[in-house]
């Protein structure tokens, strides 16, 4: 009792990682996808008030899976970090890269400090650019590592399965309705391969829309707008979705490339596959 057992550092770290991963896996998954006009966040969330996605700054959004009190804490920390930085320097000097770095340092320190319990959270920090090339998505696992993602990313419970599904089907230049449809399909797949229905009321959807005239690009998609977008999927390529009317030709191409993922899909799948433990 008085002399503690010797635990090798490898074992201690493995235990902590196991602990954090289990905590994260209990939460529902969420996905973040690039589309033609920005980045869309989609997740299943029965609550209207407790959000999984939120605005950090003008062009930066935040998504988190895992333990609510822990990621809420990190979210507020991020808002304070961004606002302080923007106040001290300029609004343009607040970047997702800087924020992701601070989050990685914070999570990493907590993970490796024996005095604290590791955070059971996995974060996504995304920044929408002026063009598709300027978009940045960072995934931050519980241990303080940082993964630069492209196209699509999934975190939470069955994230590996979902991201494999997304990597095979996500293309550049999808319209918002298409990306949303793909995200819902990915989320509604069960771990055992079955499908279940996620009603629109249980979906939390937000976008970082680069075409928004306001300085703040983050916007929640709720109510009628959400159901309109979801219905627009059903009708495949009806021009009901105003922001994506220029994307109609792509809509036709989508079905063609569904079975044969494009060149952009493959390398992403490999990259994100490698980075997973």
């Amino acid at each position, binding site marked *: 009792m008085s002399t503690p057992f010797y635990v090798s550092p490898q074992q201690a770290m493995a235990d902590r990682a196991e602990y954090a991963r289990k905590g994260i896996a209990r939460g529902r998954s969420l996905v973040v996808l690039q589309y033609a006009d920005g980045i869309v966040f989609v997740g299943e969330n029965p609550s209207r008030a407790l959000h999984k996605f939120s605005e950090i700054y003008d062009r930066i959004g935040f998504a988190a899976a895992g333990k609510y009190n822990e990621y809420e804490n990190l979210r*507020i920390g991020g808002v304070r*970090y961004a606002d302080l930085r923007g*106040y001290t320097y300029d609004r343009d000097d607040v970047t997702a890269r800087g924020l992701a770095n601070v989050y990685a340092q914070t999570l990493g320190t907590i993970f490796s400090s024996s005095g604290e319990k590791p955070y059971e959270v996995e974060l996504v920090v995304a920044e929408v650019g002026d063009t598709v090339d300027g978009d940045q998505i960072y995934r931050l696992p519980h241990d303080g590592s940082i993964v630069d993602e492209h196209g699509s990313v999934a975190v939470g419970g069955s994230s590996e399965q979902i991201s494999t599904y997304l990597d095979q089907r996500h293309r550049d230049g999808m319209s918002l309705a298409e990306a949303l449809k793909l995200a819902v399909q990915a989320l509604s797949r069960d771990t055992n391969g079955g499908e279940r229905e996620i009603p629109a009321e249980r979906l939390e959807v937000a976008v970082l829309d680069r075409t928004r005239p306001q300085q703040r690009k983050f916007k929640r998609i709720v109510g009628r707008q959400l159901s309109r977008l979801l219905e627009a999927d059903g009708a495949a390529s009806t021009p009901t979705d105003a922001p994506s009317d220029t994307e109609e030709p792509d809509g036709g191409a989508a079905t063609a490339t569904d079975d044969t993922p494009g060149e952009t899909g493959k390398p992403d799948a490999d990259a994100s596959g490698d980075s997973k433990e």
Partner: protein
Amino acid sequence: MEANTRSTGRLPAAFLTPGSSSFMDFLSHHSPDLLPGNRSLPPLQGAIEAPHGTTIVAVTFPGGVVLAGDRRATMGNMIAQRDIEKVFPADEYSAVGIAGTAGLAVEMVKLFQLELEHFEKVEGVQLSLEGKANRLSTMIRSNLAMAMQGLAVVPIFAGWDVDRERGRIFSYDVTGGRSEETGFASTGSGSIFARGAMKKLYHDDLTEQQATTLVIQALYDAADDDSATGGPDVARRIYPIVTVITDEGFRRLTDDESSEIARAILERRLTQPDGPRAALL
């Protein structure tokens, strides 16, 4: 623990402390030196020479509120700037116009905007219009020491009250005292003349178009009698900044829109230099 916190680059404890949704509260804990109110000036003889902004006017109409300001900043009897902007959006449904020391005013507005945005992001909802007006009160009060040295900032806050569904105007004094105005309000050196003009022109069923015309008329009258207020500058194409806040949110009139109104007023004043006449009885 403290040493560890510093060496790793993780977010300092103040960032992760739950509780306050106020950016100013956070700032006062984490870096109080950045708060405008925390600066102390050495005792001085006489006033500090710094650019001062002049006249701001506001008018409500059914469906919204209009807030406008002239474009002049003065330093003593010199014109410091001809095209200064003194009316700013505070958030989607409110705006603030500032008379007084320009440098401090711009900083105050920047912090005020951030305070509202920060609350909105942290809490997920906007502050009530009263809440916003009270925050501004606190900020003006924290500037009292500077005001005593002649560096006063006196704003007008106007916004659309989402709950009560009407436009509202709040005026302030230098100590942070706040009062809600019905109909119209003005602040700054030309405010007396602007208020006189508005008193005669205002009625409570103005349209948006009439309200924007009214504020430019009032600013014209202020510029007519107050040397520190600038009138429409046709040669340099500098016209008053006019903003409208309705249930659709904040909108600033484009240069073309405000120049059109200002030119129409100028045209009429060529034959009637004192502007429109009110009925005697």
